């Protein structure tokens, strides 16, 4: 029984880590900051849930399981909140979402540098 739980737990850890890996590829490949935030936060919470669940199955009912549950709770609370705050701040500072098929980059595509950096260096 524990042997089976170990295998299932290990499998869940692998699936969770694969999910984070896909998310990382998304963060690297997606065209603008909002899609990247989407990729990162979604797969981070999903991957964390799967991986921590897997570790919980491996450890069984021990004090460590409680710590895993706490880590899960913290990740589930902080990752979406941080993603929301980031997207909020990015939108507020003038990053426009890139709309449409992302292979076609319009000539008036958003500036690739942070507008705040630009006006900061000009003010000094």
């Amino acid at each position, binding site marked *: 029984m524990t042997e089976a739980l170990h295998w299932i737990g290990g499998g869940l850890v692998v699936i969770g880590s694969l999910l984070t890996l896909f998310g990382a590829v998304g963060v690297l490949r997606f065209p603008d900051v909002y899609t990247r935030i989407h990729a990162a936060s979604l797969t981070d919470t999903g991957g964390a849930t799967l991986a921590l669940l897997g570790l919980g199955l491996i450890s069984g009912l021990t004090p460590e399981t409680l710590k895993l549950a706490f880590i899960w709770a*913290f990740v589930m*609370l*902080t990752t*979406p*909140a941080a993603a*929301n*705050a980031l997207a*909020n701040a990015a939108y*507020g500072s003038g990053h426009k979402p890139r709309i449409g098929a992302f292979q076609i980059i319009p000539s008036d595509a958003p500036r690739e540098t942070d507008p705040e*950096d630009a006006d*900061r*260096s000009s003010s*000094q």
Partner: protein
Amino acid sequence: MTGFAVEMSAALNVVLLLMLVAIGLAVAHTRNLLTAILLMSVYSLVSAAWLMVMDAADVAFTEAVVGAGASTIILLGAILLTRGATARVDWRAMVAPALLAVITGGLLIYASLGLPEFGDPSSPANAYVGRMYLERTGEEVGPHNVVTAVLASYRGFDTLGETVVIFAAGLGVALMLGFGPRATLAPAPEKMGDHHVVLRVAAKMLIPLITLYAFYVQFHGDLGAGGAFQAGVILAVAVILYGLVFGLRETIAAVPVKAARSVAALGVMLYAGIGVICMVNGGAFLDYDYLFSPQVEAMIPANLLGDPHEEHHWGQHFGILFVELGVLLTVSSTIVTIFYGFAGRSIDAEEAKR
């Protein structure tokens, strides 16, 4: 550890160290100081993970909370008061520093060849005083984390020195930047906009949990990884998070400037006071075996910690507890004071501009 785990840990070492090199190069390359701070925070996370793989849990803990957490926030506060990018430097001016760096690095690599193997039991660090600590902690101090026993008991005097250094660093920052904003802060608007409502709710849920976790690290540090330094920083980070989300004015209302600096002094006083009490009772400075006079020790119930038949070192037990409390007070309130100094100074600078 099995052979597979050893191989795995060697592979992890290589990958994490390569990551450190990559981040270091990126930090050296960027001219935007903010990017450099951000990358240094990631650098601290990686090096803490690497220390964890080397099984140095207490060091990794410190690196995570101080390197990735507190120092990043303090550096951001410093950037607020200066400029955000480094000037372009002529390459001729860089020749001499580069040469110096290469020579120093080469000497360090050469010196590292003479270091003992990792985990070598017969190396000087492990053979003499280190082995003594490991063998005697159980009978002399009690069932503590050996790291805690060494830091708080065997080398309590060193740790007192470190606590004083942190206190002095806080004082130094306060002397330059002030203890907080000089101008009276404008009250927050009546109606908080719902711009960052998710963040505010999440922060409200997190701050009590962070505080609770700080106390877990404080008291569990006797037995496991962590201790008063780390707990102090975590506690300060909870206050800083409150400041970041709800503003400096609200934070100062919750943790007054005067309270922060008084508590910092109180912590050092508590630590040194414990040492003096030991001297009064006839021992050496910070010799916790003399913390309680025999009459007081007789009054401690034998079953205070459960098993009455086990031999307890009450002096060591309570000495370490009080000393760690002193460190917690000093570290947490010093970091809060430094945060107040930087944040308050930036507000004063904005006021002066108007």
